């Protein structure tokens, strides 16, 4: 087998491992509040497409509106584009309904896990092409061993998929800039001396951008990264003065790439989102304005509850430092140093991939430094920055290993292959063990997990970092509830998931959801409180109704309370 084929096979093997790990991990993860909305909408979307494909029924404004449209925030979930929901629905139809090979929840979650596996392939391939096999493998391992990303990759939601689609756009753009389509991208040599035609048909970048737009609204930030990178390349190619004299010359640098992004991207979005067929501009405006005016959910950060701007400028920075394994951050810092040093020495590659990766991360995370962008989803909102961190970690770790091997060769006169393999092995194993330990420690309540720099889950609680969101942890108290006398249950933030838990057999019959807020508590025999700072009020509502402050059970993660269950005194 040729080396190139073997290397590709390794990439696919890593992707398969990523898929398997994600699917295994999600089995113990509870159902997120938002997932229930997406699964319901996705089932309807898929049904619409299947009816369209099989009988041509459904292409009328009324059916499209009832399936995909309506006011943002409604049952059709028109505030989020449909790609992943449709994929989830089709997966459910195929894997659960038709083939019956997995349960319904797992079927809905498969597409997100596949997207994560696709991300692994792309990160591996790009890193392999630019730096080498060792860097590529380590970058992927760092990516796989991100506790929060692994968690999100197992949910029928959009945060892991947008990381994939975002990176797909970055990668496709980088490939499409290539004039000769050579793997390294540097066949054209320094831009000033060569032509600027680019690929003849760079459709990939437009399609990838369209898929990103159809996944989540974060994608609208992609042009910031791509535009900045493209401008730098154009300036390098033509020089400042010609571009100042004729700004349209920017377009001429790789005009077809720009056309692909501008035309194909929106086109793919429209094709995939039937709601836009009815009023493309108006409905895009509805979609985006919903997010520009999005309500600020409550979020605990460094001991304060934040639900209104201005937010601290450092939320994204500190949260990232506490939710990525420390060893990955250290390796990424080394890698970033290597990139910066290479840039200063003017030894960067022709298409400036490190600048592109840096801009990708900056565009993804940058808005959260403004103090006005919603912060409630924490790192899930800027997950597209993570591939850059992981690639930098791969580069930094291998660089460190090589420097160490040089030391060993010089000091102990060992053979170069032995020194290199040993140093790389030690560094790689160290990273995998540390990041793997963090990842295992984060299961199954990764939203409550913080890294060793924060002091783990208890350290995160001491620091007043957000305990959790989406009500996922409620799954952990179901075994306790099943031991209690049957009766209505105030399920709190798990209310949307309650029916699912019954359907999946995780909750026996006889424990119906008692309803919301005070009326629900008054009807209940058991009551849950999922611990977040702003949910303290639910404890007090229950005290008032039950006449006691004593819970019957407290679910803890590494000793930190995440769900309390109260039992109405007899």
């Amino acid at each position: 087998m040729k080396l190139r084929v073997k290397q590709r096979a390794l990439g696919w093997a890593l992707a398969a491992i990523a898929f398997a790990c994600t699917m295994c991990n999600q089995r113990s993860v509870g159902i997120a509040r938002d997932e229930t909305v997406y699964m319901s909408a996705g089932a309807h979307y898929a049904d619409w497409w299947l009816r369209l494909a099989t009988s041509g029924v459904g292409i009328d404004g009324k059916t499209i509106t009832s399936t995909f449209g309506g006011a943002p925030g409604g049952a059709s979930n028109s505030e989020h584009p449909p790609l992943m929901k449709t994929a989830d629905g089709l997966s459910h139809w195929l894997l659960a309904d038709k083939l019956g090979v997995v349960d319904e929840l797992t079927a809905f979650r498969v597409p997100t896990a596949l997207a994560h596996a696709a991300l692994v392939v792309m990160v591996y391939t790009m890193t392999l092409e630019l730096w080498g096999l060792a860097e590529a493998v380590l970058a992927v391992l760092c990516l796989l061993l991100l506790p929060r990303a692994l968690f999100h990759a197992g949910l029928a939601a959009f945060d892991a998929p947008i990381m994939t689609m975002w990176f797909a756009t970055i990668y496709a753009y980088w490939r499409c800039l290539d004039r000769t389509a050579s793997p390294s991208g540097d066949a054209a040599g320094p831009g000033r001396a060569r032509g600027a035609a680019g690929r003849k048909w760079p459709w990939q970048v437009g399609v990838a951008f369209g898929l990103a737009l159809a996944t989540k609204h974060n994608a609208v930030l992609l042009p910031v990264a791509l535009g900045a990178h493209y401008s730098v390349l154009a300036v390098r190619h033509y020089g400042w003065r010609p571009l100042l004299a004729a700004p349209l010359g920017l377009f001429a640098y790789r005009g077809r790439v720009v056309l692909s992004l501008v035309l194909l991207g929106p086109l793919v979005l429209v094709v995939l989102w039937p709601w836009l067929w009815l009023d493309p501009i108006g409905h895009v405006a509805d979609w985006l304005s919903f997010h520009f005016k999005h309500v600020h959910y409550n979020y605990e950060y460094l001991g304060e509850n934040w639900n209104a701007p201005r937010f601290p400028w450092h939320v994204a920075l500190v949260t990232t430092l506490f939710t990525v394994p420390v060893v990955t951050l250290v390796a990424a810092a080394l890698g970033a140093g290597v990139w910066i040093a290479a840039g200063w020495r003017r030894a960067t590659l022709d298409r400036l991939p490190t600048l592109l990766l840096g801009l990708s991360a900056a565009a993804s995370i940058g808005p959260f430094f403004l103090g006005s962008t919603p912060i409630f989803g924490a790192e899930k909102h800027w997950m597209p920055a993570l591939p850059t961190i992981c690639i930098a970690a791969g580069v930094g770790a291998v660089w460190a290993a090589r420097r160490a091997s040089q030391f060993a060769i010089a000091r102990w006169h060992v053979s170069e292959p032995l020194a290199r393999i040993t140093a790389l092995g030690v560094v790689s194993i160290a990273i995998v063990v540390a990041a793997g330990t963090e990842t295992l420690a984060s299961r199954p309540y990764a939203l409550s997990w913080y890294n060793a720099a924060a002091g783990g889950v208890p350290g995160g609680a001491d620091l007043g970092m957000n305990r959790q969101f989406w009500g996922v942890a409620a799954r952990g108290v179901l075994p306790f509830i099943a031991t209690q006398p049957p009766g209505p249950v105030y399920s709190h933030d798990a209310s949307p998931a309650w029916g699912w838990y019954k359907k999946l057999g995780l909750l026996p019959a006889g424990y119906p959801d008692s309803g919301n807020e005070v009326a629900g508590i008054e009807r209940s025999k058991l009551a849950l409180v999922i611990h977040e700072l702003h949910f303290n009020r639910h404890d007090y509502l229950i005290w008032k109704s039950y006449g006691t402050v004593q819970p019957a059970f407290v679910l803890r993660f590494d000793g930190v309370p995440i769900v309390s269950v109260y039992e109405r005194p007899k």
Partner: protein
Amino acid sequence: MVVSTALAIEPHRHSAALPSSVRWPSRLRSTLGVLPALLVVGVALWETCATHVDASSVPADEAWDRASQLVRAQFRPGDLIVFAPDWIDPVGRLHLGDLMTIDDAARMDAARYGRIWELSIRGAHAADTAGLPTTSTVDAEGVTVKLFQRTPVTVLADIRALLSGASTDGGPAKLELAEVGFAPHRCIQATPAPGHPIRVTFPSLPLGGSLVGYVGLADVFTRRDIRAPGSLEVDIAHRKVAIVHPGVDDGWVRFEIKTQPGSADVTFIASADAAQRQICFAAEARQ
């Protein structure tokens, strides 16, 4: 220059013969070269160990059982039990909640308690015990049990207990168990319409040396959606003696008014410029 060339080819073999000024930078460079890898490996080792240590750093139920036995053995009715840090409160209530009343948990402050049990972990301390002398300290497998004793304040009147005898004007005022600053508080809650204050008057309220009170805005969601502060004015014998403007991020705001012993009509006037300001207040006349 010749030396440099030799270094480049065989950096260490000939290093012993080199002048120290050349040898040291070379060795230093060589040694520094290994530091990045050592850093990565060192951090990895620390992180691996720290993750395990962190995960088991919070005392388990056995420790809390032991601590609760210690408290139960000496607990007296009227004692207050507090937990630190705040986030361990549900576990504390799981083990000792049967000894705690809702009014204890939703207290105005801890000044009226003569004995306070503090159960803490990880070196934390409760705000209610700050500055108090410790009577006893026992470590129960990671849960530190401390008993604080002091002379409690003498409460001559608690307006929450006297609400049924008060007159209200401008709107209703009712006794509530409310969330203020993410903590529970039993308080009198009034929600004045903008420009229409609610006045709650306690006739002939027994007064001592001070009137100590607290005020805050209840309900996290209205605090989020409406950012304007509320206002609470205190009049004693028809004379304004205090005004407090609790904001959305201020929590449970303390105020203290020096008073002449005796009795007087005391009026609390809740007002707001914005709608849905759930103004929550409590006060005690103290000796």
